[in-house]
């Protein structure tokens, strides 16, 4: 369903609010806002480096995320411009992580180049077709990513890595701001077509996977390591599912049954 002109105008206003806050309060520099002077005192921790490399790998699909996403969103000014700004912010995430790996000496330039080659040899495909579904996907994906970064920030700081902790903190702040924008847009969409949005939301929740999960080399082993920070089923429900629904003003009972796999018969039939 196309966004109505009135809703499109409201989404544009939401974008301007988001953008103003980003410009005035959230901008950060890879060069100036990361405490690179503390690199010497950071531990060389193989698990932390592996996780940083995995985050970096997922962020490296940026050309695909932007390329495919922006064409879906282009009919609505606010969403299209958001995606352009999103691309800028996300580009800093992989740059900061690359620099961390390189400057700590935990990966050589050759290793990073080889990793990049493996990453870009595959192409990410958008998981959902419509702008509305991709917006709903954005809510879950951004909030999940935020929770991941927040937990890994804590892990990095616990292990004495102040630099990586600072990077994760900056990235997490961006991710939760992106979540906030998608949630604001969704609240507008819900006013236009509550039933349709709920159907799409149930569909997106049901079919959600993290971006590039099937593309990053050795992903299964990597994600197992990354989830040791406590990102399990309970955390997903408590820290993503329920807060996401609360943010958009949809109760979980409104979604019950909307994405049911198949109509079952009797249990003991």
């Amino acid at each position, binding site marked *: 369903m196309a966004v109505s002109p009135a809703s499109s105008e409201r989404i544009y206003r939401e974008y301007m609010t988001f953008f103003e806050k980003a410009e005035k309060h959230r901008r950060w520099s890879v060069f100036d806002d990361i405490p690179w002077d503390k690199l010497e005192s950071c531990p060389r921790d193989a698990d932390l480096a592996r996780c940083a490399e995995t985050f970096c790998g997922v962020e490296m699909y940026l050309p695909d995320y932007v390329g495919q996403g922006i064409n879906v969103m282009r009919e609505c000014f606010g969403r299209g411009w958001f995606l352009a700004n999103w691309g800028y912010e996300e580009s800093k995430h992989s740059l900061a992580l690359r620099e961390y790996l390189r400057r700590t000496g935990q990966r050589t330039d050759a290793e990073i180049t080889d990793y990049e080659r493996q990453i870009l040899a595959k192409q990410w495909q958008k998981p959902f077709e419509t702008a509305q579904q991709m917006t709903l996907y954005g809510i879950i994906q951004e909030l999940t990513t935020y929770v991941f970064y927040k937990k890994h920030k804590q892990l990095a700081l616990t292990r004495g890595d102040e630099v990586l902790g600072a990077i994760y903190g900056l990235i997490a702040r961006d991710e939760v701001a992106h979540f906030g924008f998608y949630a604001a847009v969704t609240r507008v969409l819900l006013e236009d077509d509550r039933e349709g949005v709920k159907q799409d939301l149930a569909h997106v*929740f*049901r079919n*959600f996977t993290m971006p590039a999960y099937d593309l990053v080399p050795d992903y299964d082993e990597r994600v197992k390591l990354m989830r040791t920070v406590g990102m*399990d*089923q*309970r955390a*997903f*429900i*408590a*820290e993503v*599912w*329920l807060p996401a629904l*609360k943010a958009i003003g949809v109760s*979980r*009972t409104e*979604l*019950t*049954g909307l*994405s*049911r*796999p*198949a109509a*079952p018969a009797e*249990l003991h039939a």
Partner: protein
Amino acid sequence: MENKIDIVAVFKQAAFDAEGRHLEGLTLDSKLSELAMDSVAVMETIGVFEQRVGVRFADEDLARLTSLRDLEALVAKARRVA
């Protein structure tokens, strides 16, 4: 006085109704994380469970749920509040 509910049986039926899943060997000590269900399947099952039992759990309580025994405690709590 409220009827005693067989939490395991109702949850088992709810999992089937919601997800078409046959959960074998289920007990009160079964952990939700060990049922090979993803978070959406768990939430769907709990939604159907609530409908069948006639209760509604608070989101903050659900966020702490780990086992069927916790679910039993939540039902008792919900009935006290009702």
